[in-house]
C-alpha cells in the first residue's frame, strides 16, 4: 500500500496520458470508422472492396504489431515524423495514428451491423424521394444505425481505452503501464499498484458502460 501511495502521483500522471490518448483515438476512430462504414455499404464496388480490405487487414492484425509498424516502420524507416524536437511527442501521435487505424476497423464493423438493422424500405424510400447516396446515408441510414449500435460502440470504446496500455510499442513509454513497469524495477511486483491501476480504469470505464447502455435504451428506434 505504501508503494501505491509513494508512486501514486507518477502513476496518475501516466494514467492521464492514457485518458488523453483515449479521447483523441476515440474521436479519430469514430470519424474514420464512419467513413469506412459508408464505403462498405456504398454502391461502388471499388470503395466496398477498399473498405473491406482495410477492415480485414487491421482487424486481424495484433495491435502491438500495428503500433510497432507505425514506430519502427513508418517513422524510423519511412520517415513519418510528427515532431523532430520531442521524440516522445512523435511517439504520442504515432500511437494515436496506429490505434485510431486499428479501432476504426472495429467502429466500422459495429456501425455496419447497425446499418443492417435499418429496414430496406427506409433506403428505398430515401431513393424514391430523390436523395443521393450520401444524402440518404447521412440523413436516413446512419442516424438510425448509430442509435442501434450505441451499446456495441461503447464496448469498442472500452476496449480501446484499455488498449492504450500497450502504446509503449509505439515508443510512448510514459503511459500508466510503462510507469508501472518502471516502478516495478525498483519495488518489485506490487499487488497494490496493480489494484490501484485497475480501480483507476474501472472509474473511467464503468460509467461509459452504464451511460452507453442507458443511452441505447433511450434512443432505441421504435419499430
Amino acid at each position, binding site marked *: 500500500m505504501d508503494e501505491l501511495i509513494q508512486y501514486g502521483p507518477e502513476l496518475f500522471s501516466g494514467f492521464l496520458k492514457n485518458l488523453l490518448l483515449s479521447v483523441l483515438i476515440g474521436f479519430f476512430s469514430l470519424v474514420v470508422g464512419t467513413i469506412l462504414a459508408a464505403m462498405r455499404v456504398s454502391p461502388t464496388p471499388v470503395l466496398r472492396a477498399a473498405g473491406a480490405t482495410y477492415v480485414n487487414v487491421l482487424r486481424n492484425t495484433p495491435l502491438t504489431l500495428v503500433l510497432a509498424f507505425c514506430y519502427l516502420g513508418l517513422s524510423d524507416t519511412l520517415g513519418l515524423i510528427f515532431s523532430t524536437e520531442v521524440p516522445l511527442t512523435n511517439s504520442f501521435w504515432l500511437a494515436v495514428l496506429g490505434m485510431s487505424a486499428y479501432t476504426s476497423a472495429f467502429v466500422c464493423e459495429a456501425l455496419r451491423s447497425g446499418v443492417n438493422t435499418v429496414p430496406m424500405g427506409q433506403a428505398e424510400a430515401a431513393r424514391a424521394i430523390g436523395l443521393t447516396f450520401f444524402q440518404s446515408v447521412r440523413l436516413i441510414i446512419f442516424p438510425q444505425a448509430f442509435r442501434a449500435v450505441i451499446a456495441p460502440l461503447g464496448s469498442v470504446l472500452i476496449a480501446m481505452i484499455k488498449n492504450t496500455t500497450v502504446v509503449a510499442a509505439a515508443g510512448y513509454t510514459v503511459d500508466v503501464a510503462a510507469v508501472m513497469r*518502471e516502478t516495478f524495477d525498483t519495488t518489485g511486483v506490487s499487488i497494490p499498484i496493480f489494484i490501484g491501476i485497475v480501480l483507476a480504469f474501472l472509474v473511467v470505464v464503468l460509467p461509459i458502460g452504464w451511460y452507453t447502455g442507458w443511452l441505447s435504451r433511450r434512443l432505441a428506434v421504435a419499430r
Partner: protein
Amino acid sequence: MQIRRTGAVFAMAAMAAGLAACGGGDSYANTLEKVKGAKEITVGTKWDQPSIGLKKGTADPEGFDVDVAKYVVKELAGGQDVKITWKEAPSSNREALLQNGTVDIIFATYSITEARKPKVTFGGPYIIAHQDTMVRADATGISKATDLKDKRICQAQGSNSYKRITDPPPDGKLGLPAKLVGASNYSECVQKLSGGNLDAVTTDNLILAGFSAQEPGKYKLLNDPFTDEKYGVGLKKGDKATCEAVNTAIAKMWQDGTAKQLLEKWYGKTGMEFPTSAPPAEGCA
C-alpha cells in the same frame, strides 16, 4: 449453481497442488544446506541480456552472470558438482521469485539498493557496474556523458536509467535536457541506435558492452561512468548463512583470478574498462 461449485472445487485443488509444490522445496533450512544436502539448486538469471545471461533455444543460458553463478554454487557445495536448474528472473519479478521460493538464488544484474534491501538479502556485490553511454562507432560530438545535452537518448520500458541523465539528484544525477526516445527494451534501443534514430543508449556498462560484443566494432562505449551499480546475489530475506558463504566464494573468485578471466571471456573485445580487484563486500543483513 452446480457450475460454480465445480469451479470452487477446481480452485481448491489448484491451491492444494500449489501448496504441495511449495512444500517440496522447504525441507532444507536455507539455500546453503539445500546445495550441500540435495546437490541441486534453482538459479535465476536474465535470459535476454547478451554476455550477461542469454538463453538461446533450449540450451542453458550463458553469460557473465551465469558463469559467476556456476562458480559460486560450486563453492557453496564445497567444490562438488551441483545440478543447477535455470529459471528466468526478469527485473520486476526478482523479489517475488525469491519470496515464494521459485528460485533459490539470483544472479541477474541485481543492483543492491536501499529500496530492495528490506525485501532481499544481498550477497556480494560480485562486481560494480557503472552507468555508461554507448554510441555508434563513427559518432563524433559525444565523448563524455555531459555531451548528451539535447541529444536523443533511449528510454527503455521498465528501466529508469534515463533518469540519471535527465533528472537532477536525488532521483537522477546529471539533470541534462536530453530528448527521450521510447523503446520496448534495450535491444530495440540498440537497433534504433544502429539505424540512426537516436544518438546514444545509456545504462549499465556491462549491459551495453554485452550488446557491443554481439557486433564488434559497430558501437563504442564512452568509458565515462557516472554511477556505481553494485551487482549483488539475491537471496531469500534473512538467509544470512548462505549470504556469508556467497561472500566467501566471491572473495575467492577475485583472488584466484577467475573473475578477471570471466570478464576477459565476455567483455575482452569490447573496450570496456573493468575492475581488477574485488568490490568491497556489503555485509549480510
